[in-house]
């Protein structure tokens, strides 16, 4: 029997949640911005050769929220893993990173959170190093939906960790 896992993507408006999913599921990217309203559901099978099995990732693409406490809590129930996305080029999207993550941890106690800084293509490596104090220590991965940098890596690592 196949295994399915619920993954929820959260973060501010326009940080690239939908773009990351589109890059992962369809391997495409678009410059124009279509706001997500409510929630969209996507799915992709990931095979994990080391464990000789398949996982079906059911991805919940939530609408962006500048304040995580406005998120519809019932969407979070039963989640197997969160991906919290911010935009490395827009400080407003990570200035409350720590407290937003606290909120999430409190609402869903045992659910792992992966923190990713998206739009890595827009900034330099030096910039990322300089901003370590702001988000560096909390970030698990820098990714880019545009170039595809580390996007597959993100999801396949997650799938593996959930088995």
């Amino acid at each position, binding site marked *: *029997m196949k295994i*399915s*896992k*619920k993954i929820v993507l959260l973060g501010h*408006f*326009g940080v690239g949640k939908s773009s990351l999913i589109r890059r992962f599921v369809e391997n495409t990217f678009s410059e124009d*911005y279509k*706001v997500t*309203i*409510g*929630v969209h*559901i*996507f*799915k992709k099978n990931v095979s994990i050769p080391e464990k000789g099995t398949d996982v*079906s990732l*059911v991805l*919940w693409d939530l*609408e*962006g929220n*500048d304040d995580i406490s406005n998120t*519809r*809590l*019932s*969407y979070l*129930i*039963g*989640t*197997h893993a969160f991906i919290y996305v911010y935009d490395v080029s*827009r400080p*407003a999207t990570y200035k409350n990173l720590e407290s937003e993550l606290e909120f999430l941890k409190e609402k869903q106690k045992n659910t792992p959170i992966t923190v990713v800084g998206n739009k890595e293509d827009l900034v330099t490596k030096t910039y990322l190093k300089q901003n370590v104090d702001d988000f560096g220590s909390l970030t698990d991965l820098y990714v880019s939906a545009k170039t595809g940098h580390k996007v597959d890596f993100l999801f396949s690592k997650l799938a593996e960790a959930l088995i």
Partner: protein
Amino acid sequence: MNQDERLSILKDILLTDEREYAKKVEEKLKIVEDIVNKQNELSERVNPIIDEKLNDFVVEIPKTLGPTITETLKSEIRNSQDAVVEALFPIIGKMIKKYIQQEMQILSEQINSKVNSTFSFESLKRKFKSKRSGVSEADLILQELAQPILEQIMVIEKGSGIIISEYSKTQSIDQDMVSGMLTAIKSFAEDAFEKENQELSYIEYDNFHIHLQNFSSYYIAVIISGPYNVMYKSKLEDKLLDFAKNYINEYDIKDTKSFTKKLEQYFKNNVL
């Protein structure tokens, strides 16, 4: 006033004006210079704000203006009901007529094909039934065609929307996505109406009726096509409750295989 005095006054006037004029020009120039210098910096600072405001705007519009627009439209329609009816009547009439024509055609095609397959087992059964009950064969066929059809049963974990078990005669849809979406809709509706212990129990989608039977840690979604009515609903409910109560235990919920086996056995010969 002598010549000198006049000259000095004239000078005064001219020079003051000139000075002031020069000053003004200088000020203006400085402003322009500032703008030119700062524009890049400014746009850098302002663009994200504008972007963000625009995003907010796009999101807020349906929330704030939506109801007003709907309300206005509603009252407009209410106030000029006659005109609206006048305008819509021919179109609706045509649509209904066309729809009925098409449906009748499909129906008669189906009846014909059923009658034509005289040698099928079903039709033999029908012939007997017709003789026995005195109901005409065509009426029996009509009755058969107007039955609700149970297309699919999905047992879905609450919250996560992950499928625990599933049973269908024809597999055509992506169950993981459907069960996720059903769960999201359910969560949304239950959140939005904020009535405690009130659970969404029915969704109509396209030509399908989706019956949702809620249990504590999971719910069962039954997708039905054809005419779905109160009688069918209550029979379905009885079946689902009986199934959950008498056949399913807490271990089945964690054991997809066993759940599916029981589901299949119970609903394979569904006589609803």
